[in-house]
């Protein structure tokens, strides 16, 4: 059976399976969500109106035996940035949709009455039902649906933040243990909420499964690929053993750890929230804690972990560097248990941890609470955000909006999205990525930390300007392509160093679809995705003038290296010369 697109119209309540248009046949993941948004969403539409569309797509390799191929992409026009948006996460749904032969789900229109719905999807049907789960947190939604539909059902849901259409609301995807992973950035949860959808439940029974043009060739290539993942020192050893939060001490030592709303590049309380402390605590507390955990079936890297409380019960899972940094160092908080509690609450409320942490940093600078006030932060989550009070709404609107409301000048955002965990003054390649990414400030879009800090894929001095534009450009192109395959971005560590692993990805694509792509075609795919996204942004009103970092980065030096952001506008704009 050939793949189809499921189109759900929330205005009329109709659902239909459509054949895949020729132009989209070779696309998946981000490539497909961005192509659909660019083709069908008017760039000037209101992100929360009936003309915006929310698109889900598994990657080209999702559902196959390829390791780490279960990432799900979601795309729309972002209510946070006003640009095109793609966000991806693990969980069990991408694999299921691929096995069901559903290449994408397009959700369009919006219901006339303010009601809340769930959508039940099987391989040949989609049913829209009214739900009484208004106000429920993601964990109870997942639990309830897993009970009703059998524990194996996939769940994609929003929490109260999405229902309230907060611009920092995310979308949760159920993971193999019934906890959640997040389609985190850019407020896609608000788009889902604006369409009156609380959840999608995915029932893969009777799914036709994956067909291969050449199954043996696929098997061979997937073995080469998995071998590279387990043999490369970062993906085979570093990531699984220490998790992503090992970066906290790395960035602290490098002087690139944004601290107390980007005042300094190192944090005196770093040991309290470091990966080393997290690792020791997980081992010491035992119980349900796990040093290794995978966000989707088929991940051989297992960078994630489960962080237990004092009694060994799960406190937070998928408690990653970005979240620990945003609410920790950036807010002057060194209490890991408090951060775990906030992380867990944010998963339940359905809000992006990076946007929340950076917003809190701005709130602390504005004097709403003081730096280091962990209980104040938890109170704001519990009493204000969850309840949708005026302050809660302001926090949920993100750093740029809260900064404006309080007359703040030092607000670390690009295109309205908060800058993540690497200061652009001392990890300069990341500054180029933040400035130029079609998504607003996003570290995953072109992760120059590899060459700037980790010595993977060559070395480019993080404190100098030389080589950063080219590095960011190459990585952004490669990332757009990888984001289309459904592969987790961490496969980039071996791909940057071991040529056979890149060839194996090309071979897998060819064996799955009966193509004869070369490496150059894959880079061309990345290039064309970036250009499609940029063209959407241009039509939405974004010029080069939006590709800029906030002014304070060029005016305030960052200790300890006392560097500033010193790229000229022309140097940044040269990024797009390809």
């Amino acid at each position, binding site marked *: 059976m050939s793949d189809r697109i499921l189109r759900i119209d929330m205005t009329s309540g109709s659902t239909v399976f459509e054949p895949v248009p020729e132009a989209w046949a070779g696309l998946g993941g981000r490539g497909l969500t961005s192509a659909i948004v660019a083709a069908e969403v008017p760039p000037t539409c209101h992100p929360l109106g009936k003309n915006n569309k929310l698109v889900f797509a598994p990657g080209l390799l999702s559902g196959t035996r390829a390791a780490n191929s279960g990432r799900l992409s979601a795309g729309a026009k972002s209510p946070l940035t006003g640009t095109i948006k793609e966000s991806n996460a693990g969980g069990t749904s991408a694999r299921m949709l691929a096995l069901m032969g559903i290449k994408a789900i397009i959700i369009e229109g919006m219901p006339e009455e303010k009601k809340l719905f769930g959508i039940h999807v099987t391989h040949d049907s989609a049913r829209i039902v009214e739900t009484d789960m208004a106000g429920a947190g993601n964990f109870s939604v997942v639990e309830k649906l897993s009970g009703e539909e059998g524990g194996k059902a996939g769940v994609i849901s929003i929490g109260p933040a999405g229902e309230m259409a907060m611009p920092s609301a995310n979308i949760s995807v159920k993971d193999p243990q019934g906890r959640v992973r997040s389609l985190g950035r850019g407020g896609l949860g608000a788009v889902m909420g604006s369409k009156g959808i609380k959840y999608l439940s995915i029932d893969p029974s009777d799914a036709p499964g994956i067909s291969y043009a050449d199954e043996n060739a696929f098997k061979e290539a997937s073995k080469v690929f998995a071998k590279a993942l387990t043999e490369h020192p970062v993906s085979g050893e570093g990531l699984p053993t*220490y998790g992503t939060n*090992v970066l906290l001490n790395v960035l602290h030592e*490098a002087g690139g750890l944004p601290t107390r709303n980007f005042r300094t590049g190192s944090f005196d309380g770093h*040991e309290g929230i470091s990966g080393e402390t997290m690792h020791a605590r997980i081992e010491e507390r035992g119980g349900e804690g796990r040093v290794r955990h995978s966000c989707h079936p088929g991940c051989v890297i297992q960078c994630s972990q489960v962080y237990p409380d004092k009694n060994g019960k799960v406190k937070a899972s998928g408690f990653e560097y970005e979240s620990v940094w945003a609410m920790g160092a950036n807010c002057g908080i060194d209490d890991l248990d408090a951060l775990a509690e906030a992380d867990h609450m944010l998963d339940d409320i359905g809000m992006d941890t990076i946007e929340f942490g950076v917003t809190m940093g701005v709130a602390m600078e504005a004097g709403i609470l003081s730096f280091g006030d962990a209980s104040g932060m938890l109170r704001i989550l519990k009493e204000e955000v969850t309840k949708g009070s005026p302050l809660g709404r302001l926090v949920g609107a993100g750093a740029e909006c809260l900064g404006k409301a309080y007359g703040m000048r030092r607000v670390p955002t690009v295109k309205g999205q908060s800058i993540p965990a690497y200061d652009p003054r001392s990890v300069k390649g990341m500054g180029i990525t933040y400035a130029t990414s079609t998504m607003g400030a996003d570290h995953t879009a072109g992760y120059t930390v590899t060459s700037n800090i980790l*010595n993977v894929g060559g070395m480019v001095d993080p404190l100098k300007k030389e080589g950063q534009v080219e590095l960011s450009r190459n990585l952004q192109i490669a990332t757009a392509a990888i984001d289309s395959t459904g592969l987790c971005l961490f496969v980039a560590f071996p791909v940057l160093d071991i040529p056979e692993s890149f060839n194996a990805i090309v071979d897998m694509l060819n064996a799955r679809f009966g193509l004869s792509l070369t490496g150059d075609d894959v880079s061309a795919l990345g290039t064309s995705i970036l250009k499609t996204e940029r063209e959407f942004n241009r039509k939405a009103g974004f010029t080069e003038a939006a590709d800029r970092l906030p002014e304070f980065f060029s005016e305030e030096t960052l200790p300890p290296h006392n560097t500033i952001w010193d790229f000229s506008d022309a140097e940044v704009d040269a990024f797009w010369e390809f």
Partner: protein
Amino acid sequence: MEIGVRLFAGFRKERFRESAMAWEAGMTPRSIAGLLKIPMEEVGIIFVNGRHADPDLPLLAGDVLSLFPVVGGG
């Protein structure tokens, strides 16, 4: 000559987190790693005073050397 040495992740096991002790003159990141029985092929990142450094950089009194195993994240 006093040199600060900071170790991270698995390198701390059965060693230390941070030390400020006197070393002979002419030390380099490589020679200190050797004396601490850390195989160079396990070292992923070497910082001296927060900047990337060559394993054979001669260290000066007051320098801070940070050694990380091969790690990643994002």
